[in-house]
């Protein structure tokens, strides 16, 4: 079947679905939503509908990124626009159904926004609300709107236009387009994606691979989960285009084991694509064949490091190899391999479908495009936002996530081993790759963790270091011993047994760990320690000199307290 026929059919179904002749209830069903109680809300909704004797369709969708408003649901009555409500309790949801579906009362008090161009009964349109007006949604454009397991929903919303267009281009042209778009890796290192693909395309050999890195191990980051749970088809389309551009016929997606829902949705999506000839042999009738293998992790942070990821897929411990050679020439099974993050690949279909000029026009001069960031911690409205580069972080943290400006201590962006900077400083920076690099930091994977005043910085760093120590794979000793030395020293400080020379010791060994380690894990393991000693030295001093924890979080040992 050609794409046109598939899309025409899908559009027809989508039209009927979005102009329903009976009420539609769409439940937000991401992991956040389920943890917040979406299952009970759904049961309450089904019950309420039964009581009202109303025939309605109860559907599901991924998460729009308003994690604070979960459990959420959307209601669309025949001839009316779709309205989002949240946060709800099961009882509140039942009442809402009775009011909205039973009595036609739009319940403005619980409404968040409406999918329409103009306000409806005083409910603002989605894109005019505070949370959406600054966003520019590319990878998240369908999340929270379509059913993540219904291929027709995706096809009716621009799905597979990118791949169809890519198949009319040569692989080199696709790589060139991605290069000109200015797309850079969203996994942390921000390496230009087109350049990486060019290396792989040029590499000798007929057997090549693409790997999608879905091991999102950085605490505080859940952008990849939003994509996989909200719009898995788009990700697979991106992987397929990457495979076409690099001459790969087989690809892997490596999903961390903590993501059962994402894994299940990606698997379902792959099955549906195979059934329609969009994955497998002779995709869309061309002579390009590609299949995707979905692999689950087993709990190891180093599986996110590209070389560790490759080892793990090969069936070994996730131990990084030394580089060079880089994966682009010697990757999986020592064949040329492209490893990209979920969000990076999810950007590709739109770049090809709408043209690189469009993407390159977004963002700032030096950081092009958009990026999904997630904000959590000491904020009132944690969530995920897809923003063009250039938006001030002050707006993101204070207005979008609604942190309390009087309760801000520090911000950590992008994983356990990234910069921990004073909040006042972070609030002066813009969102941007090079812009942040100029300020001596990076945005890493885009997970912003806001640390409030009640947190104890040395204790937080202790916990981070425990994690970094446990996840050190043990292959190179600067990382293994360095994280251990840091942990032991921090533990001593947090127990009130610190020595005055401890801080200098930790600063002294930093370069050895940074320059001696084999992979990116050890190379940055010192960052949280050095940053916090630089910016929050006073807190360490209280622990060391006065043997107490001002926040009352550290467990000062009785011996130390008595001295």
């Amino acid at each position, binding site marked *: 079947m050609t794409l046109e026929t598939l899309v025409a059919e899908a559009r027809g179904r989508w039209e009927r679905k979005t102009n329903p002749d009976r009420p539609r209830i769409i439940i937000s069903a991401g992991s956040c939503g389920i943890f917040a109680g979406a299952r009970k809300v759904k049961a309450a909704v089904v019950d309420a509908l039964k009581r009202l004797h109303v025939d309605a369709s109860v559907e599901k969708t991924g998460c729009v990124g308003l994690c604070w408003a979960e459990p959420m649901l959307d209601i669309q009555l025949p001839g009316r626009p779709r309205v989002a409500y949240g946060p709800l309790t099961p009882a509140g949801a039942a009442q809402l159904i009775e009011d909205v579906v039973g009595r036609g009362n739009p319940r403005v008090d619980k409404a968040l926004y409406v999918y329409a161009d103009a306000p409806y009964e005083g409910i603002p349109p989605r894109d005019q609300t505070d949370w959406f007006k600054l966003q520019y949604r590319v990878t998240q454009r369908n999340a929270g709107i379509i059913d993540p397991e219904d291929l027709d929903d995706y096809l009716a919303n621009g799905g597979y236009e990118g791949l169809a267009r890519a198949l009319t281009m040569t692989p080199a042209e696709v790589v060139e387009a991605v290069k000109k778009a200015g797309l850079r890796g969203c996994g942390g290192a921000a390496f230009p994606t087109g350049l990486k693909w060019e290396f792989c395309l040029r590499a000798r050999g007929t057997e090549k691979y693409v790997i999608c890195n879905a091991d999102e*191990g950085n605490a505080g980051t859940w952008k990849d989960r939003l994509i996989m749970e909200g719009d898995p088809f788009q990700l697979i389309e991106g992987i397929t285009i990457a495979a076409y551009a690099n001459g790969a016929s087989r690809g892997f997606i490596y999903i961390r084991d903590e993501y059962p829902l994402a894994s299940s949705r990606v698997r379902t999506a792959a099955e549906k694509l195979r059934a329609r000839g969009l994955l497998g042999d002779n995709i869309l009738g061309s002579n390009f064949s590609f299949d995707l293998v979905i692999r689950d992790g087993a709990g190891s942070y180093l599986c996110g490091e590209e070389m560790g990821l490759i080892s793990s897929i090969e069936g070994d411990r996730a131990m990084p190899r030394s580089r060079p050679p880089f994966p682009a020439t010697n990757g999986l099974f020592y064949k040329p391999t492209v490893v990209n993050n979920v969000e990076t690949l999810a950007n590709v279909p739109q770049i090809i479908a709408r043209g690189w000029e469009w993407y390159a026009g977004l963002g700032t001069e030096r950081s092009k495009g958009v990026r999904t960031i997630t904000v959590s911690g000491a904020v009132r409205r944690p969530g995920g936002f897809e923003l063009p580069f250039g938006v001030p972080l002050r707006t993101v943290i204070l207005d979008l996530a609604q942190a309390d400006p009087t309760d801000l201590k520090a911000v950590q962006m992008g994983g356990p081993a990234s910069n921990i900077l004073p909040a006042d400083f972070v609030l002066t920076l813009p969102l941007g790759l090079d812009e942040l690099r100029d300020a001596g930091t990076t945005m890493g994977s885009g997970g912003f963790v806001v640390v409030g005043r009640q947190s104890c910085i040395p204790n937080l760093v202790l916990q981070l270091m425990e994690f970094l120590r446990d996840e050190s794979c043990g292959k190179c000793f600067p990382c293994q011993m360095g994280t251990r030395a840091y942990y032991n020293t921090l533990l001593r400080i947090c127990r009130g047994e610190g020595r005055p020379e401890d801080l200098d010791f930790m600063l002294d060994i930093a370069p050895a760990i940074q320059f001696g380690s084999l992979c990116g894990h050890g190379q940055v393991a010192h960052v949280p320690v050095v940053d916090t000693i630089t910016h929050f030295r006073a807190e360490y001093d209280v622990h060391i000199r006065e043997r107490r924890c001002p926040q009352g979080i550290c467990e000062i040992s009785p011996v130390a307290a008595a001295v």
Partner: protein
Amino acid sequence: MSESQPPRRAVPAGLEERVRQLLAPFRGDRTMTVDALKVIQQAYGYVPPESLRVAAEELGVSENTLDGILHFYEFLFPRPVGERVIRVCSGTVCQALGVPVILRRIRERLGLRWYETTPDGKYTLMPLPCYNTCAYAPILQIDTLTFVRVTPEQVDEILDGRLEGVEGLPCGDGKPTPPREEVEL
């Protein structure tokens, strides 16, 4: 895992045949080591060390390689765990929002530190790096029951079964991906 008192354990009967049967789909595929160990873990609740020789033969790797893998990945258990596994998120957000105090409470109640099992074999305490649902931090899970925005005061209620949790989305149990019906809404 508990250094002090690992629960007593006998070699499961009929282990060799069972493992060969379980691993039939992976025979000779050395890339599927982790998945193979997960299947064994699903059957026994952990990966019995005695199974490694047979598994190594089936997969075509050395027993040492498998042993290394078993001890490397966090969600593969080389020893039996307690009847109920308590997972506490050890991610940055949960840490900043109260996990240290929650852990202290668990220690006072059950005497557990990370990876330890109570002497009666009832509970094992394990960290989970981050559920990546940090908007609901701190998160605590007992088997498949999840508790979100946990306060230290709630720890007792949770352990006594007085607090209602959310079913589903098992994380870090080291089993193959659950069937769709079990995780979907």
